[in-house]
């Protein structure tokens, strides 16, 4: 791609710039704001309408579920948890990469996150929305779903706070709330940008209301940046706790295949792995559709591929260590559960999981593959398939053959199981399409801070840091170019 133009003053020699294409503040605003303002591109409808159709399928499948009950799913007596819980864990996991990018990479001062954090955070919120649907609908008697919350009621009953299932209610709903606040706080300056560029009264009012009258005062930025830092600091332990708590839904059970201490870190690594794959899929489409190849650069994609390689290896290690511990424990039930997982009736699902999650990311050891758009896209899809199967394997293969052979059975998903899975993708992509159409896809105010002319000491530091002749040509000039963009 366009790597020839280096417009950042990257002190580490030889590293690709964060943003290419010679942007200044004004052209960056243009690049991000114009997709929000211009006529809807045809390509957007190409994604939006199928998504909307899938969302309709979701509505139908939920309506039929409410009418008929959970019998429309393929659940049977040993396998009382099926697609609903698989989808729930899958979607919560997808969300985790957004928080990792927005919060953890922020704390680690990884400035490359600025181009992708907005979209990744949006992805988090939509993924958590999809996730929250499933615990709500899978309870069977949906009209008493409010029992999940500690609300005073006429029966004088309260939830059991010793159960991981209630921890889950708190963890996931608070995670959704905090992610939404984090995302909105980040959006305020960019909404103000759209407000100030608005030509029509409706746009001025619509964006103006949500921009809260932001005027870029540094007295405001001071509190704003502090609030943002603290939200990042809060979201970091929160995100680690969420999938840990989700994993405890399984790990605190006695069931072989679930009763494992490795589950919390294994789930968190898997969540980040699948989430990065989803960010990759979305970014590869968005950067082409909205012509942002210079803002979401090959460096961003390559960095994401590296994180996918790391987390993919962690997930692969967890698969291995699970097998080892099952053998090493000397517990025949554990040993059977894992032998059955790899060789039993669900072996097909297990090997889909292993080949997608462990083998696919290994190609990212090669720089060429990390920079191959086609392979990045294919692998991101494969990894998401693999991570969905990981949850399926954990749920179905552990449940279907437990301690009592007389109760063994095989779980076969029905049409409505698949309808709700596909439908949840419809919800996710519909929301994401609307986001990409109506809100700034890139955190413009943040990206501006990584442009070289945003540095109030531009030049000064470089004279000190960079040895003479190290290619820092703007450093020598007393008045740096850019800034005004006039």
């Amino acid at each position, binding site marked *: 791609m366009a790597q020839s133009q280096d417009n950042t003053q990257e002190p580490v020699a030889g590293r690709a710039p964060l943003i290419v294409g010679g942007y200044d*503040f*004004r052209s960056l*605003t243009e690049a991000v704001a114009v997709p929000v303002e211009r006529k809807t591109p045809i390509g957007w409808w190409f994604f939006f309408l199928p998504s909307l159709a899938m969302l309709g399928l979701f509505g139908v499948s939920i309506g039929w579920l409410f009418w008929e009950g959970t019998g429309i799913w393929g659940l049977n007596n040993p396998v009382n948890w099926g697609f609903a819980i698989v989808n729930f864990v899958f979607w919560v996991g997808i969300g985790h990469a957004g928080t990792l990018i927005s919060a953890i990479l922020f704390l680690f001062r990884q400035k490359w996150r600025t181009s992708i954090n907005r979209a990744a955070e949006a992805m988090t919120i939509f993924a958590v929305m999809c996730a929250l649907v499933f615990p709500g609908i899978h309870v069977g008697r949906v009209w008493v779903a409010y029992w999940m919350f*500690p609300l005073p009621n006429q029966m004088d009953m309260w939830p059991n*706070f*010793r159960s991981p299932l*209630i*921890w889950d209610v*708190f*963890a996931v709903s*608070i995670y959704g709330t*905090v992610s939404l*606040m984090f995302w909105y*706080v980040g959006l*305020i*300056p960019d909404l103000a*940008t759209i*407000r*100030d*560029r*608005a030509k029509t*009264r409706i746009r*001025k*009012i619509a964006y*103006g*209301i949500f921009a*809260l*009258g*932001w*005027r*870029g*005062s*540094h*007295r*405001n*930025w*001071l*509190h*704003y940046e*502090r*609030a943002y830092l*603290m*939200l990042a600091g*809060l*979201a970091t*332990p*929160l995100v680690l*706790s969420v999938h840990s708590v989700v994993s405890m839904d399984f790990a605190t059970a006695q069931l072989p295949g679930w009763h494992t201490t490795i589950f919390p870190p294994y789930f968190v690594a898997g969540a980040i792995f699948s989430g990065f794959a989803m960010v990759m899929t979305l970014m590869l489409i968005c950067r082409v559709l909205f012509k942002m190849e210079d803002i979401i650069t090959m460096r961003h994609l390559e960095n994401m591929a590296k994180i996918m390689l790391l987390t993919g290896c962690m997930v692969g290690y967890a698969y291995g260590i699970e097998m080892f511990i099952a053998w090493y424990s000397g517990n025949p039930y554990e040993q059977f559960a894992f032998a059955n997982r790899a060789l039993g009736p669900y072996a097909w699902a297990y090997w889909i999981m292993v080949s997608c999650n462990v083998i696919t990311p290994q190609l990212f050891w090669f720089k060429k593959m990390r920079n191959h758009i086609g392979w990045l896209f294919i692998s991101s899809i494969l990894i998401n398939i693999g991570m969905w199967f990981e949850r399926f394997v954990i749920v179905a293969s552990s449940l279907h053959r437990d301690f009592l052979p007389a109760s063994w059975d095989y779980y076969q998903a029905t049409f409505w199981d698949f309808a709700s899975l596909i439908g949840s993708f419809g919800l996710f992509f519909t929301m994401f399409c609307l986001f990409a159409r109506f809100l700034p896809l890139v955190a*413009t*105010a943040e990206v*501006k*801070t990584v442009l070289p*002319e*945003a*540095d*109030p*000491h*531009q030049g000064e530091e470089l004279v000190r840091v960079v040895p003479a002749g190290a290619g820092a040509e703007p450093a020598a000039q007393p008045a740096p170019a*850019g*800034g005004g963009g006039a």
Partner: protein
Amino acid sequence: MGLMTLDVPEASAGYSHYGVLARFETAKALYRACEAVRDAGYSKWDALTPFPVHGLEKAMGLKPSRLPFLVLATGLTGAGLGFALQSWVHIQAYPLIISGKPLFTWPAFVPVTFELGVLGAALGAVLGMFAFNKLPTYHHPLFRSETFSRVTDDGLFIAIEAWDPKYDDRATAEFLSGLGAVEVEHVPIEDPIDTDDGEGDA
């Protein structure tokens, strides 16, 4: 729109202008100018930028935000309330002995206590930031300036308010021009003519 009151102190009564608004071309020039304005002894002034200019609070002589104390307080409140709720439910409201375990099983209360602590702290951070920044403030004299719409694009501004003790209509404007401002203008408090929302779009 006027949903909220004007973010202008009582002192503004009797002033014809909000103050002087000056635009600077680069972050470096803005930083230098802020240092100069601070050293000149102005107190009622602000820098307005499309992005947080790194370290500008030092150049402006601003104290660090006190938001962390509020966040600590709301976070501890959230965690405390969460722990109290769970203890009350299991000891007082709905005492059930499960697996022969005691009623006050505090280790099992840790996850929800933690989550509610995070919720309290996050709400404190966001709502506290809104309160400290007086957001939403939909109406502000600066929005009457034509050039000010660039503040969310590429405009780097300093605004010195008319009720600053050191303020003088001409001298302050000349002072800012001397610091390298490329555009200097006086911003009115009242609408000069009937504009519908005061946002300057060219």
